[in-house]
């Protein structure tokens, strides 16, 4: 167990208490909101209610569940990214590489080796683990911005390989569709969309629990210490490198698992999930929701992918189409809206949605909140001197 002093200036994230192992009522009460959310999400497929245009159709319809399932997968992916970015302060631009590896490798394992979906998932995750060790070991030799660029380059290498379609494995620009006969019948077809939706929900729950466990473990404390002040961790006699490598591998393996579920949900692996823009959108998700906070990452990922999928439908509506060109064109581009929103959040709402809500709950009217946003220097967000 490392010196406890490392944690002197670590800002406690909400719910990040070190509790005594074993049953205690406070802990159960604290976990109540999470439990309620999971139960509500789990029973959605049985709720045949109208959504008034918020979703493509009724709540329990396959179309709506498919959209929500994607939102859940991206929430889990954003959470795995936040483990690196928000909890450890590693600005990686290569996270999409592992997500895409999960989708592509699982598909290739099924198509080429003829293994079942479950075996393919295991193979993909193990391959993702090895890839993460390799990429992490090289990238983490440099720090800060150089690290960001090296991971970006690795992701670009992956993108090139996928687009080149070596040996017909990846399907090039068209992507590769799921080998359906290797997938259990219960997860196939429009009728069974709810089952795949539950798989996505299970993924999010598992990722959430693992991230919670990891951040509360001994290495998890070191990760936060590295985020706050890496030099100090070194001075205290700990080498940050193995801890950074560990968090990189954990986050990447979780991303690989998300990729496998994505393949199952969408029915194909396509090059759009390995573009640099995709990694950038992960960053947008985490910061929108609030980085370094599990709820923030989950809400950010969920909201981003919801808007990304639904905004085109809103843009096609008569209300938008009847606007003059100067308004219609920008409003028809989801990424324009999301990019602008992101810039505004960084400028005016440091801490993202969740951080702002917490500050609001802690008291303060909107004007002082804004002023705080404009003048505040967030702890642990400046470059390490």
């Amino acid at each position, binding site marked *: 167990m490392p010196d406890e002093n490392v944690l002197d200036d670590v800002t406690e994230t909400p719910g990040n208490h070190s509790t005594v192992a074993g049953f205690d009522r406070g802990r159960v009460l604290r976990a109540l909101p999470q439990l309620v959310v999971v139960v509500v999400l789990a029973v959605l497929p049985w709720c045949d209610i109208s959504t008034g245009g918020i979703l493509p159709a009724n709540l329990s319809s396959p179309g709506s569940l498919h959209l929500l399932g994607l939102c859940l997968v991206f929430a889990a992916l954003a959470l795995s990214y936040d483990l690196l970015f928000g909890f450890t302060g590693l600005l990686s631009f290569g996270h999409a590489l592992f997500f895409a590896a999960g989708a592509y490798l699982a598909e290739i394992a099924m198509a080429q080796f003829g293994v079942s979906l479950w075996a393919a998932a295991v193979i993909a995750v193990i391959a993702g683990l090895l890839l993460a060790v390799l990429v992490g070991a090289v990238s983490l030799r440099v720090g800060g911005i*150089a690290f960001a660029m*090296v991971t970006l380059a690795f992701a670009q290498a992956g993108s*090139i390989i996928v687009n080149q379609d070596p040996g017909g494995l990846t399907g090039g620009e068209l992507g590769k569709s799921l080998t359906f006969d290797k997938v259990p019948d219960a997860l196939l077809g429009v009728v069974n969309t709810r089952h795949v939706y539950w798989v996505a929900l299970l993924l999010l729950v598992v990722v959430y629990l693992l991230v919670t466990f990891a951040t509360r473990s001994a290495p998890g404390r070191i990760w936060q210490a590295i985020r706050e002040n890496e030099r100090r961790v070194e001075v205290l006699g700990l080498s940050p490198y193995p801890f950074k490598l560990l968090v990189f591998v954990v986050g990447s393996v979780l991303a690989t698992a998300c990729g496998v579920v994505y393949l199952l949900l969408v029915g194909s692996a396509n090059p759009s999930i390995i573009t640099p823009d995709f990694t950038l959108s992960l960053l947008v998700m985490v910061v929108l929701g609030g980085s370094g906070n599990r709820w923030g990452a989950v809400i950010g990922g969920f909201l981003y992918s919801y808007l990304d999928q639904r905004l085109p439908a809103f843009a096609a509506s008569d209300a938008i189409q009847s606007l003059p060109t100067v308004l219609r064109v920008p409003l028809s581009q989801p990424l324009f809206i999301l990019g602008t929103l992101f810039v505004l959040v960084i400028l005016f709402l440091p801490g993202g949605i969740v951080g702002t809500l917490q500050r609001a709950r802690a008291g303060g009217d909107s004007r002082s909140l804004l002023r705080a946003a404009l003048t505040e220097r967030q702890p642990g967000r*400046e470059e390490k001197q």
Partner: protein
Amino acid sequence: MNSIVILLAVTGLGLGALYFLVASGLSLIFGLMRVLNFAHGAFLVLGAYAGYQAGVHLAPSGATTISNGRFTLVLLAALAAGALVGALTEIVLIRPLYRREIDQVLVTVGLALAVGALVLGIAGADPIRFPAPAWTRNVTNIAGASIPNSRFLAIGVAVCVLVLIMVFLRYTRLGLIVRAGVENREMVTALGIDVRRAFTLVFALGGAAAGLGGALTGVFYGSVDPGLGSELLIFAFIVVIIGGLGSIVGSALAAVIVGLLQQFANYYAADGVGDLAVVLLLAVVLLARPAGLLGKAIP
């Protein structure tokens, strides 16, 4: 055989020239402000489209072959658009986030996404033919190799930009402030010099070089499309890192190496291998010299 080598070498240098035009600004901005500017690709695309618009409005209806005088105006329009957007970015987005360096990087990410989507919405996804004089589309024979003149144009402009930046940094007062700021920002501030003007200037300069690079990319490939920025930006990032952050000469050197390696490997091995070789080169350079070829260690 020999003619192929010459063709590949000149094309590689031309590609390196484009990389340098993007990388020089990136490197200067990072050296002075520690901001990794993801919006640099957006500056490039905006420059390219501004040049295209200028060409369209100046030329008689729909002609994509224009006179040299008009072409100069096209290049100037691209340069001005890049400089303007660069300066505005610094003043509106970067300056309010003073001392929040991670947020400064994030804000450029948001800007890159928004501008990319906007250009896509206005101009559409299809490539559009870029206006250029006829001579840029002709070829020159060198030792049996037929080389498109646009390659020479890119190389010539990049060399001019390199010389201009070097002169600016070495012989002007503002250049001196920028160099000192790259060396030690706190000290410059402590001496009572307002570094913020240098920040805006460096963004404008980098934007101008990127805008010019956008127009030349249009000439190089014959057309422009909204995806141009992100593709070039990645290789420009790699060039900046290999050359050493904040070193202009390093960027130039790395741009030449990367452009040549990419061309030769893509031709002699297989398509796509050159792109991978560049990534591999980056990994090797970083493992051997984490600060890059001519860079100083990043604090």
